[in-house]
Structure formats: structure tokens, C-alpha cells
């Protein structure tokens, strides 16, 4: 049985663990195949009930590194964590990273992940130079923006449905060192967030993210963090390996409820407010605050949780976002972590890339069954009406029509799909 990050359960018929790239093709024959990595996707895109799962975790070697250009060739199962650790003190970092580093390179590509740096760096897929993809017919395809460009663009953000990535070439970006100069600014309303966000982008900050409270009467308040790589990195003794806390077991019920949420959000807001101002942070703390708590997702208990991430075009973003907040507040199912970010106007790297010009809102809801699903359906209506889309990597329940409407390049993508590859997500939403 496999358990996704959000607690979605699925039982594959078989799991394969190739340890060498040359073993991969023999595992791709036969019925329904899906490549997986660290299984940090929230919903069902990395699950394949009754099919075969082929893990990339044994394929975790770096193949070559060009120290002049910062170009890394690697196997699919190399962890982002290892790339950051290996190269940061040699002057290179990943140009784009999501909020956890415990994911594989192939997973980052298949979900075309984004992070706090979208404004300047776009998505992970924009830094992929080429890929080698193994298909179920036994063939190997080299693809890049100039060679097999359709397969390349379909594989980036392709949710693992175009084949098994056996090798990837990615470019890193020069980094002065591991530290960031950050600034945290509390805000009291959504309007303030949008103002801050605009100001931050125009000032050329490297990374930014907003956390806000949508549970309490004071909904709309929050805190905005932005950061730049520190120019002065001399004092490497500041570096400390963070001790991580572990949630060793899943509690029998969700620890996230109305009371704890209210307390948490208020406490968090006050904490952010008191810590507001400028501060130097290690990249681990800046990019991966939740990596400090291992298995934090268990806090939601055995029923797990949903993450709901939408993106809404700039034009309608402000009104749609405040309407969503109103609906959430009325439902009484506040979200533990509400994260707001803006996406810049960039050409998406993949045919099914989620990140696009607009405002993205990510919400976590403990799974309370029907009422949670109903809440998300009412949010769907707002998103659809505003011309937005939902992030498949976080999803376990969106409708086919919602997916189709949000991803207009789907027909072009389907021409590149490997017919033997499938996931619980593809069966639920695409097939």
C-alpha cells in the first residue's frame, strides 16, 4: 500500500526498485506503469492502484557537473536536498525549489514545481536543459527545447505520464553562499498583501511569500517574507545543521481543529509580528521551514488532509481571493497554512504546467469528509469563474471539467503520453 503526503491510500499490484538505469526498460513492459519518487505529492498523482510502481529512488547518482557553467547531469532519483548540500558552498544552488527539499529531481520536473523565486526564476522546468525518457515500447528518447521539443514540454509538468525519466540535465544558478538577507513584514489586509507583493517584485527581490490567517475574525492579516541572497557570506561558522523534530506516529485524530487552529494562527501571527524586520537566515530555514518537522503531515491524523492550491489570473485575483476567504471563514473550516504568492508573466515550461501569471493561494484543510469536499466545491466555482486552475500535484478531488478548463494544452499533451503509463489521478481526471 502507498500513502500519499495528504494521506491518500492506494494499493499498487507491484513495486519495482531498479538500482541502475539499464534495468529500467525491463520494468516498463506490461500494463499500467507509473514512476514514483519520494511520494510527497498530496493527492493521487503518484499512486497507481492495481498497477506497477517503478521507484526512481535507487537511481540517485550524479553523473557529471560542469563547474564553469553550473550544469548538472544526474539520475532521476537525486534529491534536491543533496544538490543544495553538495553545491552551495561551491557557489551554486538550485534556481528554483519548492517548500521541501526531500523530493527527487524527476518529481520536481514531472510536477514542474515552483517556489518563492517565480518572479525571477520561473519554475523548475525552465532550468532543465534536456531529458532522456524511457518509454514502455523499450525506446529511449533524448529531448530538449530543440530536439523532440513536444515530448520535452509534455514531460515537464507531465505528471509522470510520458515515460520514465532516466537522466536529466539541469542548470544551477550562481550563489554567493548559503545565507539570505530576509525581511518579514506583517500586513493587516489582503489589499496590503497585494501592495507589498507588487512593491517587492518591482524592487527586484529574489524570493517572496506571504502567509496569512483565514481562520479567525481577523482574517486577511498575515505576514510577508522576502529575501535576497546575502552578499556578505564570510561567516560560514554561522552554519548549523538544523536538528529536526519528528512526529513519530499518526495521532488517532486530527490535532488541527477549530480551537487549535485559532490558537496557532494567532500565536503565529504574533510571533511573526514580533520577529518582523530584517534578519539573516540559512537557506534551509528560508526555503524549507517545514523540513524542520519530519512527518508534519501526520498532525492531521489518520484521515489526512487536503491541500487546495489555485491560481487566478491577475485581473480577477484580488476579488476572487477575498471571495474565497469569505467562503472559507463562513464554513468554519479554517486553514492551518494559507500561503499566497504571485506568479510572474512567463512562458510556462511545460504543456501542463500549473504556474502561470496570477496569484496562487494554497490552503490545507483537515479531511472532515463531506463538508470539506463541499467547501472545496464552492471554492472551485469561484476559481472557475475567475478563469483560474487547480494544481494537480496537490489535488485528490478535482473534477474532469475543472482540469480541462485549467489546462487547455491537454489535447497536445495527450499526443505525447506513453499509453502504458497511468496513475490514479489520470484515471480519475484525464482518461
Amino acid at each position: 500500500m502507498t500513502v500519499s503526503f495528504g494521506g491518500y491510500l492506494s494499493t499498487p499490484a507491484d513495486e519495482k526498485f531498479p538500482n541502475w538505469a539499464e534495468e529500467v526498460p525491463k520494468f516498463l513492459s506490461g500494463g499500467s506503469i507509473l514512476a514514483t519518487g519520494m511520494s510527497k505529492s498530496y493527492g493521487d498523482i503518484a499512486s497507481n492502484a492495481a498497477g506497477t510502481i517503478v521507484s526512481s529512488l535507487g537511481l540517485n547518482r550524479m553523473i557529471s557537473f560542469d563547474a564553469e557553467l553550473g550544469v548538472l547531469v544526474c539520475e532521476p532519483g537525486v534529491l534536491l536536498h543533496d544538490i543544495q548540500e553538495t553545491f552551495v558552498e561551491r557557489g551554486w544552488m538550485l534556481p528554483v525549489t519548492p517548500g521541501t527539499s526531500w523530493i527527487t529531481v524527476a518529481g520536481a520536473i514531472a510536477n514542474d514545481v515552483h517556489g518563492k523565486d517565480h518572479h525571477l526564476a520561473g519554475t523548475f522546468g525552465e532550468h532543465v536543459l534536456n531529458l532522456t525518457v524511457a518509454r514502455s515500447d523499450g525506446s529511449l528518447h533524448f529531448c530538449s527545447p530543440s530536439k523532440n521539443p513536444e515530448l520535452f514540454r509534455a514531460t515537464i509538468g507531465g505528471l509522470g505520464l510520458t515515460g520514465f525519466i532516466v537522466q536529466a540535465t539541469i542548470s544551477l544558478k550562481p550563489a554567493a553562499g548559503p545565507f539570505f538577507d530576509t525581511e518579514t513584514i506583517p500586513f493587516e489586509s489582503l489589499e496590503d498583501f497585494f501592495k507589498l507583493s507588487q512593491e517587492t517584485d518591482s524592487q527586484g527581490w529574489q524570493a517572496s511569500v506571504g502567509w496569512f490567517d483565514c481562520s479567525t475574525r481577523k482574517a486577511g492579516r498575515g505576514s510577508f517574507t522576502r529575501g535576497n541572497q546575502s552578499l556578505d557570506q564570510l561567516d560560514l561558522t554561522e552554519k548549523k545543521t538544523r536538528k529536526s523534530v519528528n512526529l513519530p506516529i499518526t495521532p488517532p485524530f486530527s490535532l488541527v481543529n477549530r480551537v487549535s487552529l485559532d490558537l496557532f494562527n494567532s500565536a503565529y501571527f504574533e510571533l511573526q509580528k514580533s520577529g518582523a524586520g530584517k534578519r539573516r537566515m540559512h537557506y534551509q530555514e528560508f526555503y524549507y521551514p517545514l523540513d524542520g518537522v519530519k512527518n508534519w503531515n501526520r498532525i492531521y491524523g489518520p484521515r489526512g488532509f487536503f491541500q487546495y492550491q489555485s491560481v487566478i489570473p491577475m485581473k480577477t485575483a484580488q476579488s476572487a481571493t477575498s471571495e474565497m476567504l469569505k467562503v472559507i471563514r463562513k464554513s468554519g473550516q479554517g486553514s492551518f497554512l494559507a500561503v499566497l504568492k504571485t506568479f510572474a508573466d512567463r512562458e510556462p515550461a511545460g504543456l501542463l504546467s500549473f504556474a502561470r501569471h496570477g496569484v496562487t493561494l494554497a490552503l490545507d484543510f483537515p479531511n472532515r469528509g463531506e463538508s470539506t469536499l463541499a467547501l472545496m466545491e464552492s471554492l472551485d466555482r469561484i476559481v472557475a469563474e475567475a478563469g483560474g486552475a487547480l494544481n494537480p500535484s496537490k489535488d485528490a478531488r478535482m473534477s474532469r471539467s475543472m482540469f480541462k478548463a485549467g489546462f487547455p494544452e491537454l489535447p497536445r499533451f495527450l499526443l505525447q503520453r506513453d499509453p502504458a503509463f497511468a496513475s490514479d489521478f489520470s484515471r480519475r481526471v484525464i482518461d
Partner: protein
Amino acid sequence: MRIIVISATSVLAKCCVENWANRANHEFVLVGRDHSRIQSTVSDLSIRFPMSTFVGEVLDFMAPAQIQDLLDSLFQKRVDLVLIAQGSGTSQIMASRDLGYLAAELQLNAVSVALFAQGCTQKALKANHGTIGVIGSVAGDRGRAYNYAYGSSKGLIEVFVEGLQQRVAGSGVSICLIKPGPTETPMTRGHKGRFADPKAVAKLISEGLAKKSRVIYAPRVWRLVMLVVRLIPFVIFKKLKF
């Protein structure tokens, strides 16, 4: 240190190399059977640990003359540490039915390990220097219907190493028998049960080798577990299902 790793492509051996390279800069010779696998292991480690050096060597693990030649050349320079790590997760079901398979597995898991251990010990004794770690298994402590094809080869290693340990006693050479419990490797993936994290096992191995322990159980709890298992009289043992 100059460290030689036999079967460096195995997950556990690679974790040991990473553990050593993480703490200090060393000179590694990585020995394997497959040219491209050794090459990709060397490339990966060279990128991750640029301050250490990695050289690959490839040979037939079953060929005594090739083993002798390789050791002759490697021991021309000082060798501080050798880890002998080859092993294959023998399927008892296949071994029971197919004598050809059984023969090949015993060759790799027992004979080949003994050849390397003997060859290295001779060389180390000549230099009167060096630590040799040989990976056995807790499976070598008793013959069980469930896995005796594998366990017996590990049992051979145990007696062989004990002989070598007596031979080198009082010299500058130390020989260490490493007995991991079930560890998460490609061998155990897909099997049911609890498997130890190879990184944690590698840490115990490198600590044990540094202390020149005679026998390293990893995780440590296996020392106690196997003591109990060894003490069970056969009349009772034969009725047990584990």
C-alpha cells in the same frame, strides 16, 4: 587514509564510503565487477566529495589469479582500510531447485569473500598495517530453513574471519567481522519486515572499524537477539517458524 572497497557498488558499501568521505578527505579505490556501474559510482562520489579522490577497478570476483594481481598492485602503496562487501540476496526457493544457481551464489557470497579476505590479510601482514572489515550477516549465526543457502555462506565467512583474527593477533593488522541485520537495500526492497537504514548501519560500521572491534552488529540490538537465537536448543529450534 587510503581505503579499498570491494564491491563498492553495493548500497551498504556506498553508504560506508559516503560516511567516511563526509568526515574527512580520503583516497578511495572502488572495486567492482561491472565497468559501467563502477564508473557511475566513481563519478557520483567524485562530484559529491571533491576533496577526496576516487579510482575504479574492475575484475572478476571469482577469479583467484585476477584477485591476486589486483591486490599485488593495490598494496604496492600503503593501504589503511579494506572493506569487503560483496553479497547477493540468495533466493532460498531458487537455490533449493536449481543447483547451478546455488553454486554461483555460494561462489560469490562465500568463496569470493574468503579469497579477498585471505589475499588482503597476507598483504596487510607483510606491511604489518591495516584494518580489514568483512561483511557477514546475522543470518550466518544459525542455519534456518528459510535462508540457509545465504546464511551458510555467511557462516563460512564467520569461521574464516575468526581464523584470520587468530592469525593476525598481536600484529599491526586488525580484522573485523561486520554483521548487519536486514538492511534496506535493493535486495530487501519489496520484502515485508523492518529494515535498518543503510546510513545508520554504515555509521556503526565506520565507528566499529575505527575502534578495531572484532565483531560489529548493526543495528546493535542484533548482538542480543542472535545470542538468544544461538542458545535455543535444536529440539526447540526445529519447531520454530521464523
